[in-house]
């Protein structure tokens, strides 16, 4: 009779919350979107782990998409999605790993959703095992630890800071750079306990910013979605939805004049970059910076402070927003001529223009 009507969670003081992040031996799971738009980011992430932090991380050529974008645009059934996820775990098991390092936020949220479903509804796990076995003859084990790439960078932020030749400090003024963060919705909004510091004030990115000398700036629409909306971006006629959400964020961060936007989600990274361009084109408005606010992901920023080459290593030329103003502020040494060159350093043509608006001079 007196049983509570619904599950009540024990009170968690999120600001003090730390999730468990594995220390070593990661099985890397790539992101469709990040590979497409910022392949360099994934490359430097592996490099930082292997070369700077001395960690073991395995990049398995056999893993595929998790089909998460299909799942969230509802053309992939939950059963199929679970089985796709199970296959990734099977590869991990096969290679003898127990910790996943996930590049994509959609995947990260999806893996967590699947894991939580298996926990609460064991019959779903059984069904998935059956499906996977029937389809591929594979079996799998549930990973012991599932961390997003940004969790791992966060965990080792101090080690990175110790090795970093650069700090997020304006070389000219000596002031810390003002950095706004944007956390992908599926990082912790679905499962706050899967994010460092919970969902409302996740520390995963601000922790890096502060560890590397920058100033994390809070802005009112910090937690608002970038507007990907899965099916909404995929259908051209629905893209106004996406751009509207991003515009709201830009409007909100503009008064703080941020030097940079830091993201942990490949989709958000791309959208916050591209929508600045599109908004400038349709409304003539530039929200900050010289010609737009640079948008970097956690791997890219880590690599930058660690002294990786912005073009050849990190691939920042694939961003529409110019990163040069940021590099100049930090004092990163780079060769502007190398920006638009091919494998062998040869000039390979260049974009019509970069940044928000074409230069008129």
């Amino acid at each position, binding site marked *: 009779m007196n049983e*509570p009507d*619904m599950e009540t969670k024990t*009170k*968690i003081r999120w*600001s003090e919350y730390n999730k468990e992040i594995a220390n070593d031996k990661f099985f890397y799971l790539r992101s469709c979107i990040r590979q497409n738009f910022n392949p360099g980011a994934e490359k430097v992430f592996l490099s930082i782990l292997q070369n700077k932090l001395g960690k073991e991380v395995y990049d398995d050529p056999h893993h595929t998409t998790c089909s998460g974008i299909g799942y969230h645009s509802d053309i992939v059934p939950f059963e199929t999605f679970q089985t796709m996820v199970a296959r990734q775990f099977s590869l991990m098991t096969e290679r003898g790993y127990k910790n996943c390092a996930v590049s994509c936020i959609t995947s990260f949220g999806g893996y967590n959703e699947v894991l939580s479903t298996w926990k609460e509804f064991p019959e779903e796990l059984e069904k998935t095992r059956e499906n996977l076995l029937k389809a591929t003859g594979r079996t799998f084990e549930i990973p012991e630890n599932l961390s997003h790439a940004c969790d791992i960078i966060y965990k080792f932020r101090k080690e990175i800071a110790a090795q970093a030749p650069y700090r997020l400090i304006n070389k000219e003024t000596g002031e810390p750079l003002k950095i706004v963060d944007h956390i992908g919705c599926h990082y912790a909004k679905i499962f706050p306990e899967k994010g460092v510091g919970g969902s*409302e*004030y996740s520390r995963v990115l601000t922790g890096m910013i502060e560890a590397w000398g920058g100033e994390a700036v809070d*802005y009112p629409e910090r*937690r608002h979605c970038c507007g990907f909306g899965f099916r909404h971006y995929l259908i051209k006629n629905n893209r106004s939805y996406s751009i509207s959400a991003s515009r709201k964020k830009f409007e909100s961060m503009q*008064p703080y004049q941020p030097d940079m936007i830091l993201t942990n989600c490949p989709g958000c990274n791309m959208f916050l970059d591209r929508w600045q361009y599109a908004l400038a084109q349709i409304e003539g408005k530039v929200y900050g910076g010289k010609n737009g606010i640079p948008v970097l992901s956690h791997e890219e920023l880590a690599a930058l402070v660690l002294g990786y080459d912005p073009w050849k290593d990190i691939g920042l030329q694939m961003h529409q927003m110019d990163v040069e103003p940021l590099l100049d502020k930090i004092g990163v040494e780079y060769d502007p001529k190398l920006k638009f060159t091919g494998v062998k350093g040869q000039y390979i043509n260049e974009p019509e223009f970069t940044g928000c608006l074409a230069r008129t001079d």
Partner: protein
Amino acid sequence: MNNKHVAVIGGGIAGMEAASVLARQGLKVTLIEKQANTGGKLNDWDHLFPDFSSPEVLVNSLATKTKDSGVNTVYNTEISRIERAGKRFELRANQDARFYADAVLVASGFNVFDATIKEEYGYGLFGNVITSVDFEKRMKKHGQLHTIQGTDPKRVAIIHCVGSRDAKVGNTYCSKVCCITGIKQAIEISEMLPDCEVFCFYMDLRLYGSKFDSLYLQAQKRHKIQFIRGRLSEAAERADKSIQIKAEDTLQGRPLRMTVDMVILLVGMEPGASTSQLIQKNQMTVDENGFLKSANVHCARNQSTQEGIFMAGTAICPMAVNETIENARSATTEIIHFFENRRP
């Protein structure tokens, strides 16, 4: 019955009222208060609903009553354990003090919900987000309401159900007194700052008391308080320290955004910390909300699940001041019945 001894734990209004009534019935009563003075949370309160009277008068009169009726009040003593010793009880305090009693009345009150747990409202982060308790304290101390920048607020949002009816913070019950407190504070703000717009964000207005609804009408009619049906989703500080809030205007089915100078969170009541200490070390049971469980919610509200241990006031459930006092009196009747029935 005259030689019977009752220990009353908690010197708030429930404890004081019950102690003085019991003492006047000829019982020996020890009132044990953990702080240096009696009155409990009301000591920080500025005005009571629905009549805007001063709690100080009430607390003082209860203190006088307690003193005059011959209650032995012990201060700075927190009971951590109640043990049954034969037909009697042994009460242990933190500093090795021992009390013996034939019956125990637990009137240990409530805790105010810690609004920092409701992170998205920014309490503790943003200077212009305060709680209803802070409001009372400020009004009592300064008689003024200022933003953190030192200006008169031009727009204040009062947020209902903070820490109540919220599974996310573990409290699914209604704290009952917040709605009327919000309306009272809204009126106070509007009287103090006539140019200030006051908004109440509510889900249901639970104005159960006899004069509560007329206060609601008065708030709308005379004070132009605006009521928006929608639960606050998040608060965020803007560059100028004002607070941007978001809710749904549920009566329209559209999201709403507004900038206000101050946000007042109507924090709910939670089971008292001292209560939980007692529970851990005794067999006293709690209900689904964590408050002390009554033997029967209808006819034995003040009886705990342990014979001889009684309860009064907000240790049982959220209550208003007048209900607490009535409840304390009803507890005394239960205790007297208990002694009468016990006589062979």
